[in-house]
């Protein structure tokens, strides 16, 4: 455990030094702030600059508070996830490609700790960034539009946090298996987009899917409870995270760290 903390602290320190701990939360805060403002002023803006026929702006009413929060999550799922995946794509592959992991792994370091410390750090950074951004979004939504019950918000946010954790775990696992960080990012987007699309197109057969979690969180904002099948997709997601993490550790152990050159 002591060793795990040392490894984890190194990850945190590294991300503080290269400003990840500042710029990623700031990006989320910016996204969180912008969405309520845009939602609130969009009808106005359309009226003023849109050159729309009289009355058309009425077709764009100011959305409800829970809608705005859901729209914020939409922003997080696009730009936010893009940023997280690209920032973490080299988590394991990068250290292997530049050879820095060799001198660490000849020390009596547990491979499981090495991988899980990286995972924990990525998850923490992702969740802190998300929380920071979402707090600002909630504040602006309350200020400009209307308040939403706090319990609804917290539950919805927790559910969405699990989706983020899932995506981060995909990045980490792929980064252990695949050498090229670009391929890691590409495949992660492939997986998440497929899951999300399938979940919205075929909700009946995708009830288990982690891709359902965002729509469950929308439902929490609106009603205080998830859609049908919420528990199934929650459990499946947790299970898949555990399986992927174990797989990452297993693969990492099997791989030979030193690369044969001559």
């Amino acid at each position: 455990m002591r060793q795990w903390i040392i490894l984890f602290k190194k990850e945190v320190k590294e991300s503080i030094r290269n400003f990840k701990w500042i710029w990623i939360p700031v990006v989320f805060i910016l996204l969180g702030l912008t969405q309520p403002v845009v939602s609130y002023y969009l009808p106005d803006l359309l009226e003023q600059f849109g050159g729309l026929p009289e009355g058309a702006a009425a077709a764009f009413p100011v959305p409800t508070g829970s809608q705005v929060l859901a729209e914020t999550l939409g922003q997080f799922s696009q730009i936010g996830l893009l940023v997280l995946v690209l920032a973490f794509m080299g988590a394991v592959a990068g250290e292997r490609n530049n050879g820095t992991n060799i001198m660490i792994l000849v020390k009596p370091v547990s491979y499981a700790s090495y991988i899980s410390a990286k995972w924990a750090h990525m998850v923490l950074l992702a969740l802190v960034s998300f929380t920071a951004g979402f707090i600002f979004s909630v504040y602006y939504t309350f200020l400009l539009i209307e308040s939403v019950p706090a319990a609804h918000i917290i539950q919805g946010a927790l559910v969405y946090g699990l989706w983020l954790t899932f995506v981060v775990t995909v990045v980490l696992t792929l980064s252990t298996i695949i050498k090229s960080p670009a391929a890691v990012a590409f495949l992660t987007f492939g997986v998440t987009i497929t899951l999300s699309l399938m979940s919205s197109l075929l909700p009946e057969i995708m009830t288990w899917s982690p891709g359902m979690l965002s729509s469950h969180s929308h439902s929490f904002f609106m009603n205080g409870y998830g859609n049908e099948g919420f528990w199934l997709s929650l459990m499946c997601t947790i299970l898949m995270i555990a399986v992927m993490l174990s797989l990452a550790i297993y693969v990492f152990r099997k791989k030979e760290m030193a690369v044969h050159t001559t």
Partner: protein
Amino acid sequence: MDEIVNELQAVPWPVVAPIIIIQFLLMVIALIDCLRRGGETKGPQWVWILVIVFGGIFGPIIYFLFGRRND
């Protein structure tokens, strides 16, 4: 002229100002990082400075993701 003044007054500054400030903050962090690194960027430093300053919200993000050499 009056029109511009009117429009400026119409902007809800208390609401918009934090967004602008935070975006500016992001830009400043990126600039500090870029300058502190000296030549250690991928590609010429001055290009990255232009990207950061004129790239809007995405400029600093793109710099942070792709502009820095790993060390």
